[in-house]
């Protein structure tokens, strides 16, 4: 297992190099000129040229890539072209809201969705099943921003229980953190409940039809034990996969939710950087997101082994 993990980590290196090269080239090929953005409306061609020179944008692509790559190896992601802020500190500032939202959403979603999916499978074809599925379809179908605005209208504007927007660090003020993270969490949870409940139900239905479940029931095991210990554990692989990918999706940025609740997360950082052609920031964020995807996939694979001892990695 250890050698498998080591091999996976090593295999991530060429993936990251490819991602870095791809992102770098894609940005250089896309239209837009950071120098023109900085210079504004009245810059002369000479001034533009001087800014390009200073930013190193006139160097051959290979030189630019090598320079960036060399700095990356030293843990230096560069600075924002526009504000001069180090990319690492920009990403670090934006990670806390994003990770907080991802954790609260995933935990709340699992707590609600897995039991819902199990019950729906267990009560397959009954009204309970249909209600759970209807809720799932609704969660999938209603756009996130609609749910967000409805929640804001009810809980923030009408009832005045919660604030409309913003983020406070849990380390600064846990109470305000809880207030501010509640509505965005509920918004995203509506989507993730739908996702996880559906996959739980489908996976459970498949497992409940297996011989070993019939055997477990035949030997007189309590239904709860049959469902939770035998069926759910054997259904866990696809559920864990969906949860893992869902987590990675939030970590790489949920722009709409972040915008509506004014959460300064990774999603908004990415969109702002793309619109402003802030190359170092875009490159940094995409590299980080890729790294997280690789890491989360590795964790998912490890979880498979824990959940299903039949799975072995050579």
């Amino acid at each position, binding site marked *: 297992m250890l050698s498998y993990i080591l091999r996976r980590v090593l295999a991530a290196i060429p993936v990251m190099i490819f991602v870095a090269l791809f992102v770098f080239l894609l940005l250089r090929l896309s239209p837009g000129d950071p120098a023109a953005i900085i210079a504004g*409306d009245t810059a002369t061609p000479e001034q533009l040229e001087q800014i390009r020179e200073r930013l190193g944008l006139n160097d051959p692509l290979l030189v630019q890539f090598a320079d960036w790559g060399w700095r990356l190896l030293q843990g230096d992601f560069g600075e924002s072209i526009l504000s001069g802020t180090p990319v690492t500190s920009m990403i670090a500032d934006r990670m806390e809201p994003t990770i907080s939202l991802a954790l609260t959403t995933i935990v709340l979603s699992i707590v609600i969705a897995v039991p819902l999916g199990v019950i729906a499978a267990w009560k397959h074809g009954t009204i309970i099943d249909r209600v759970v599925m209807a809720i799932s379809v609704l969660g999938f179908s209603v756009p996130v921003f609609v749910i967000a605005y409805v929640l804001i209208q009810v809980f923030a504007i009408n009832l005045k229980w919660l*604030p409309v927007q913003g983020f406070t660090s849990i380390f600064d003020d846990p109470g305000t953190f809880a207030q501010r993270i509640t509505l965005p969490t509920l918004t995203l949870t509506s989507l993730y409940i739908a996702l996880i409940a559906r996959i739980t139900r489908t996976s459970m239905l498949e497992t409940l039809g297996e011989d070993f479940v019939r055997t477990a029931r035949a030997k007189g095991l309590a239904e709860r034990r049959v469902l939770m210990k035998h069926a759910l554990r054997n259904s866990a692989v696809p559920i864990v996969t969906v949860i893992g990918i869902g987590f990675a999706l939030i970590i790489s940025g949920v722009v709409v939710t972040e915008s509506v609740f004014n959460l300064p997360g990774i999603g908004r950082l990415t969109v702002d950087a793309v619109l402003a052609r802030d190359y170092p920031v875009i490159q940094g964020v995409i590299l980080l997101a890729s790294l997280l995807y690789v890491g989360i996939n590795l964790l998912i694979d490890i979880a498979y082994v824990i959940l299903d001892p039949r799975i072995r990695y050579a």
Partner: protein
Amino acid sequence: MFDFLAKTGRRAAPRRRTAAALLAGAAATALLATPLSAQTLKVVMHSSLRVLDPIITTAYMSRNHGYMVFDTLFALDEEYNIKPQMAEGYTVSDDGLTYTITLRDGLLFHDGAPVTATDVIASLKRWGERDGMGQKLMSQIASWDAPDDKTVVITLSEPYGLLMDSIAKPSSNVPFIMPARLAETPSTEGVPEQIGSGPFKFVQDEFQPGVKAVYEKFEEYVPRDEPPSWASGGKVVKVDRVEWIVMADAQTAMNAIMSGEIDYWEAPPYDLLPVLETVPDLTIHVINKMGSTTIGRYNFLHPPFDDLKVRQAAMIAMNQQDVMDAMIGNPDYYTICGAMFMCGTPLETEVGAEGVMEKDDLDKAKALLAESSYDGTPLVIMHPTDVGSLRTQPVVAAQAFRDAGFNVDLQAMDWQTLVGRRASQAPISENGWNMFFTTWVGADVFNPIANNMVNGKGSDGGWFGWPDMPEAEELRDAYAKAATVEEQKEIAEKLQAFAYENAMYIPLGQFTAPAAWTGKIEGVLDGPAPFFWNISKSE
């Protein structure tokens, strides 16, 4: 089976109780939430502050930031009079060549150093490398001297009527004064620190680009005694702290101001104003009465707009009413205005503007097009879809042009792609362009020198589109040297007539953008930019 239900039921109950307790707790905390500090002004600006150096960019957010942190030698009041700000006063020699400016007492930078004449000279020189009016001024200056720490002597090579107008310029780029050690930074590179002598200090540690910028009152700032008027007069800071919070979503900003989470919103979209107008204790007010103008600009280097008749046909095909209706909608916030140097200014005139002020004369446009060299090649109009204030004009123009007989290729892109592409002088077939639209704050176009669109320097030194029209440059030079206001007006009128006759660009209307603020704050000043001195906040 029932056993399972019973057990899960029992287990679920504590969870439900926990969840309910959490929700109730969160709600209770919200109700008991600490009220916003009376001394912190929470503001949502029109955009995010990105570039901190207000000299290297013309971005309005950088200009607004500049007004917080830096101060100016002179400033305009609301009647467009030039008033001393950091200066105590100035004298001009009889031959009009030597300007002697004296600094007032008590000027300090945020690092504690006194402001000296050397700082002023270094700052103005750096500004003069970047700003259009500044470049023109620099070409007229023979020497700079600082006989003592408080005196700046500027000697001109020949009389130049716009020296004071230039250094009192209210909008981008504003000639802000910074320490000489920072002003020595090349003008293509941002200054490494935000140290000014303005009424607010920039809190670098709390700056998060795209999230917020924070300013604290500069306790040692000595305001002038005169009452504030635009950027002139006493800049008395009445709050401890100002936070510019970025909100990407207008609906969120509206909810936030309605719930009192923010105090001031610089630019609510026009379509949300009817909702805001129903909110009690919310003031909706236009602080920049001069407002902005929106324009269409041709590319003069390539067909078909290298042909005057085609440009005239395009100009006649459009009318301001359609653009303003589509873009602003509410007539309270727009004016049909043919004045290239803005309506409401001393240089206002509508000479030559009939083509854009009257409703379409399609027959005339079609006739001109038929007489022209236009061969039916589609016009490439750049359409920035990500900027609310710029996405409407190209659509209205495209329809007007089609009605007049043009073929149109409306190319959607983001604004930054447009910014990069409009700098290209390449032919249309090589990713060139025929037309784009933009907006200008009035203070950036209110005289022939500031207004880039009447620059006739061509592809070397002209503004995007690059008309090569030496006559326009002669008129601009004459304006710069004019000795009296009457003479300036006369020349500005001639230049406007020339610019319309030669279709240098299409002025498409003048509009204002109201700001909104809650009943907790008082003392918001009118101005060419949002100012945060003089504002007090109560609970």
